[in-house]
């Protein structure tokens, strides 16, 4: 499961600035990198998701661009469920105070 997760994240984010420089295949390194990069991409992703959701929901499954977007979308959902967080730093601050 962990290896699959790493492969999926790697595949998805290799093209992005977040993991471009990440050489380690260590699960914790990748997760850490994702967490630290999350704040930066949050706004962009929110805006993009609003844009893509306004695209016509294509039904042509033979369209390679459409299929590619579907793949990314599912992977994005997977990552969101498994790695996304909201306000985790408040918990950190609460523990420290």
């Amino acid at each position, binding site marked *: 499961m962990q290896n699959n997760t790493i492969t999926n994240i790697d595949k998805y984010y290799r093209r992005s600035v977040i993991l471009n420089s990440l050489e380690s295949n260590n699960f914790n390194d990748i997760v850490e990198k994702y967490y630290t990069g999350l704040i930066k991409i949050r*706004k962009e992703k929110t805006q993009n*998701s609003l844009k*893509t959701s306004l695209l016509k*929901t294509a039904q042509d499954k033979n369209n390679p661009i459409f299929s590619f977007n579907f793949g990314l979308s*599912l992977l994005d959902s997977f990552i*969101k*469920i498994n790695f996304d*967080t909201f*306000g985790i730093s408040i*918990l950190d601050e609460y523990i420290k105070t």
Partner: protein
Amino acid sequence: MKAYYSYWSKGYRNKVDQFYLDMNKLSAFFAKKNYGEIHLVTDSDSVEHFKGIAKWDSISTELDNLPEKYSHVWSLGKLLTFKIAAERGHHFIHIDADVIVWEKLPDFIDHADIFCQSREGHVSEWPSINCLYQLKNKYNILNEIKPYISPNCGIIGGKDLNFIKNYAETSIQLVTDPENEWFWANNVGQHFERAVLAEQYYLAICAEKFNKYITYLLLDGSEEECKEKKYTHLLGAKNDPLTKFKIKEALKKIEI
């Protein structure tokens, strides 16, 4: 506003574990502090685990009524809880166990007819959306496929109890209708897709159908915004072993 929690042991988490109880304990502590009343809707298999973790104002085991066959659609437990809260006439906020509302949420949430945590666009791209539209349209589903924004339901609630009851009730019917079994029963083992469709995407469908406006707590969901609104949703951090440690540490503080 009264706070609600739910736990359906037939859902994907199955038997409740200590980490879940710890999260729920921390979350319920702050909900009690900020909203005064906290209510739990669960089932007979789990109720004993939850009794001691918070000063519940009521505990119900009505989730016993949900069909195990659709356990992968774990949001059924939440949906039935929304319906129960609405039928009780409670202006309510349902809080997921992995959500911590550190302080009372802003006034605009109190005043909202329907509110949720934040928008999620990615759901509208799922292939299964096309199947959803083949289901019988007696469940508020419009004929036209629309790319809805799916509301994240880390928190959900509001004052429009008629709408919330209708949405929750029809969503449960949509899933459990034998005529729709081909869609809902064939995805066992997949932990979030069908559950998110029934809870979140269907909410967007209902809101469109009845021309209802959903208010969102978070606009961009950034860490800064969460800090400002004193809101935490652990979501994926649940998989991080460090989070278990952090929750334990936080619990030490409230127990002092």
